[in-house]
Each structure stands twice: as structure tokens, then as C-alpha cells.
């Protein structure tokens, strides 16, 4: 795409301005979704707000590098996740490599067991979990896993979009997602059982 120079024709300048305004409006419509993920990537509302502002400031500056017709949402989230890494999220020990014994049904089985009612309605079983515990458990996920879980389970990206956003292979997305979800369930199972006495 050509740069706008002082020599650009008035018509070109007008087209340019129109494209830019449209880009900015479309990006702003996605801001709620960007904030929701940013909030869970950060420890506080203030940090999330800073991160989102930085994301949009950078997106607006770099609007020419967005290729119209491609996925704007994924493009924005790529900026978000890169900035989040740049802002020096805590360096972690290499992510949790302990074997996870728990199967996928682990959380349900644990809750059902502590309910003592094999016929309990599934919604009732979920109600035994606390939303605060879920937020804490998400915050405590190793960051590489959390990024993937948030993109897929919260922001509804496909595996392949998540892979592109994070710049990792799709197989890595799948394994981190799988493991991240299990770690999340394990910590919720632990807190649910503690809370239940």
C-alpha cells in the first residue's frame, strides 16, 4: 500500500482517511472482547486498561499493515498477546511438566462424589463451583497455557487462529489447551472440595 506523502492527490488523501476511519471503527467494535481477555491476562483492572490502550494505540498507528479482508480480530489479539509478553509478564519456571493423572472426567467425578448424589442435575453440580475460584484458577495457570485457554475458551478463536496469534504450531495449541483445561479443573476440584469442608 502506498504511503501518503505531501504530494498525494487530494482524492488519494480522502480515500486514505476514509479507509483509516473505517479501520478504526471496526477495531473499536472489538474492544470489549479485547478487554475481556486482557483483564484475565493481567492482575488488575488498571493493568488491563493500560494494556488495552497500548494495544489500540499500536493498532491505530500500524493500521496500514493490516491487510483488508483478513481477520482483524486475530490481528488485534496478536498485538495484545505480543504486548503482554513485552510488558514482561513474570518469567515462569518452564511450564508444569508433571504428569497429570486426572482424566477429563475428573472434576465431574470429584464433584459428584462430594455431592453424594449420583442423580444430581449437572447444572446443580456446576453450581458447587465458585466464580471467584475460577478466576483465581485462571490467573494461576502457567502463562503459556493460559494464553491458549483464554483465546479458545473465552475469545472463541479456532485452534488455527490461536496458533497464528501466538506464533506457535497448531499441535502446540492443542496440547497446551488440553493441559491448561485439565490444570484448571484440577485446581477447581481442589478448592471445591476444600470449600465443601
Amino acid at each position, binding site marked *: 500500500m502506498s504511503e501518503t506523502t505531501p504530494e498525494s492527490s487530494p482524492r488519494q488523501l480522502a480515500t486514505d*482517511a476514509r479507509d*483509516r*476511519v473505517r479501520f*478504526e471503527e471496526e477495531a*473499536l467494535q472489538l*474492544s*470489549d472482547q479485547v*478487554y*475481556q481477555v486482557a*483483564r*484475565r491476562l493481567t492482575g488488575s*483492572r488498571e493493568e488491563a*486498561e493500560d494494556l*488495552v*490502550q497500548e494495544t*489500540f*494505540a499500536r493498532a*491505530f498507528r500500524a493500521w496500514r499493515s493490516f491487510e483488508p479482508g483478513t481477520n482483524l480480530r486475530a490481528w488485534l489479539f496478536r498485538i495484545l498477546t505480543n504486548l503482554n509478553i513485552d510488558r514482561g509478564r513474570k518469567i515462569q519456571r518452564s511450564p508444569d511438566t508433571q504428569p497429570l493423572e486426572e*482424566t*477429563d*472426567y475428573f*472434576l*465431574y467425578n470429584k464433584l459428584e462424589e462430594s455431592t453424594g448424589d449420583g442423580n444430581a442435575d*449437572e*447444572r446443580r*453440580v*456446576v453450581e458447587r*463451583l465458585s*466464580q*471467584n475460584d*475460577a*478466576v483465581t484458577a*485462571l490467573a494461576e495457570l502457567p502463562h503459556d497455557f493460559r494464553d491458549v485457554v*483464554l483465546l*479458545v*475458551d*473465552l475469545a472463541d478463536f479456532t*485452534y488455527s487462529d490461536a496458533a497464528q496469534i501466538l506464533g506457535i504450531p497448531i499441535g502446540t495449541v492443542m496440547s497446551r*489447551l*488440553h493441559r491448561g*483445561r485439565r490444570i*484448571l*479443573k484440577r485446581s477447581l476440584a481442589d478448592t471445591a472440595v476444600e470449600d465443601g469442608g
Partner: protein
Amino acid sequence: MNGYAFDPCDKCEQMMQPYLDRVLTEEERIEAEEHLDGCAYCRKRYRFEAEFRRFVRLAAAEPMPAELKEKLRSLRTPL
């Protein structure tokens, strides 16, 4: 590849997340659904997993502060 005949629920468990993520092939999806139709044990867990996802999404969602939206609008390039 067929541990399936011996432990259907084990197989179904492995399919549960991909099934919920809608990434199974058509053939696998039909197989998973046939199994769910016939297995109350897995059906219960399927409904739980679906509820659990809604729960996590709801727990994680925090609306964007209105002032932030205004701040973002002010970052637009002035016309």
C-alpha cells in the same frame, strides 16, 4: 486402533473436548454422538462439560469500563 470395544467410555472421554470444540471429523462426530445416545454415564459428563464451559466463560467475563471505551475513541487519528 480399537480400545473402543473394551472400554467405550475411555474412548468417549478422549473425544469429549474435541467434540465440544467441534473439531472432530464428520465420521468421528457421528461415532461420538452414537455413543452419547447410548451411554448415560458419558451423557451426564457431556452435559457437565458443556455447563462447565459456560460457567468458566461467565466467571471470566468482566465488562469493559465505559471510561476506557471513551479513552480508546480518543486514540483515533484526528480527522
